[in-house]
C-alpha cells in the first residue's frame, strides 16, 4: 500500500454505521456519507445494529439517542461492556445540556444537535475515520 495514498484508501475502506429511526434523515445521512466515499450501513434501531455487528468492520457510528427499544446512551454503555472500541457520534434532536454531558461521560466521541450543519458533521466523522482507520485495517494483526 502506498502511504502517500493513505487518506484516500482509508476513506474508501472505512465504513460508518448510522442508527436513525426517521427515514428521511437516515437517507440523507447515507447520501451525505456516500458523497465522500465512505461505506454506509444504516439501521432503524439499536437492536438491528447489534445483531448485524459481528459481521461488520466499522470505523464510526452515528446514532440518535431517542430510539425505539435500546436508546443511544444505553447502546454506548453496551458497546463498552462488549469491549468494542467504536467511536460514536450522537446526532440527536434532544438538545439538552444534561443529556449531552451524560453522553460524553458515557464515552460518546461527540454530541451534535439536530438540525445539524453538514460540514460540521462531516468534519467530525472524517477526523475519526483518519484517526482510527489504521487500527481497523490491521485488526487481523492483533494477537
Amino acid at each position, binding site marked *: 500500500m502506498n502511504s502517500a495514498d493513505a487518506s484516500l484508501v482509508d476513506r474508501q475502506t472505512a465504513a460508518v454505521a448510522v442508527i436513525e429511526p426517521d427515514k428521511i434523515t437516515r437517507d440523507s445521512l447515507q447520501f451525505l456519507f456516500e458523497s465522500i466515499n465512505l461505506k454506509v450501513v444504516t439501521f432503524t434501531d439499536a437492536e438491528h445494529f447489534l445483531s448485524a455487528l459481528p459481521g461488520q468492520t466499522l470505523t464510526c457510528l452515528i446514532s440518535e439517542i431517542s430510539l425505539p427499544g435500546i436508546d443511544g446512551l444505553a447502546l454506548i454503555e453496551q458497546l463498552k461492556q462488549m469491549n468494542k*472500541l467504536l467511536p460514536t457520534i450522537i446526532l440527536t434532536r434532544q438538545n439538552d445540556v444534561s443529556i*449531552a454531558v451524560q453522553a460524553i461521560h458515557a*464515552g460518546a466521541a*461527540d454530541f451534535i444537535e439536530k438540525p445539524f450543519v453538514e460540514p460540521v458533521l462531516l468534519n467530525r466523522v472524517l477526523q475519526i475515520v483518519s*484517526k482510527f482507520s489504521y487500527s481497523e485495517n490491521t485488526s487481523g494483526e492483533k494477537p
Partner: protein
Amino acid sequence: MQTDPTVFIVDDDEAVCDSLSLLIESAGYRVNSFASAEDFLQNYTEDCNACLLLDIRMPGMSGLQLQKELLKRNFTLPVIFITGHGDVPMAVDAIKWGAADFLLKPFLEQDVLDRINDALKNLPQKFHDIELQHEISMRIARLTRREAEIMIMLAEGKANKVIAIELDISQRTVEVHRARVMEKMQVRSLAQLVQLLMQVNYLSPQ
C-alpha cells in the same frame, strides 16, 4: 487524618459566590472563592483533595480558558462548570476537555452538592477516557506497519533478539524500530506502552 475537602469557587458575581459559599460550607466543605480566573491562578497551589466550581462568562479569562490553562499546568483539579449562558456545544467541549460536570443556572442546591460529592469521589480526575483513547489511537496510526507489528511483539514480552529471529531482520533493525515505537507512542518504558495499549483494547487480555 484527612482534612475536609476544599471547594474552590471562581465567579465574578459576588452574590453567587456568597450564596454558593454558604451552601457548600454548610455541607462541611472548606470554601475558597475568587472573583476572577486570573486571581485564582495566582493563588492556587495544587490541592489533591479539592474541586473547582467555575463560571464561564467572566471579564478577562473565561472559565473555559481557565480549564485549559489548568490542564496545561497539569493540575488535575476536577472542574464543575456552573453557568447561566451554557449551550450544548459548550457543555460538550467542556466535558471533552475533562470537566467533571456542567450545570446550568438556576440550579437546585441539592444538585450542586451532589455534583461536588461525585467530583470529589472520582479523584483524581482523569482526562476523559474517550479523548485519551482517541489520542492513543492517533499515536498508533502514526506507526508504520512494521513498527506496529514490532510493538505488539514487544508488548507480548518478546526480547529484541527473539523479534529479530521471528521477523528475519537484524537485531540492530529491531532496536531502531523499537526506539521509533517508543518515540511515536510517547512512552519511556515497556510497562507504559503496555498500559497505553490496554486502554484502547489494542491488546487482548491474556
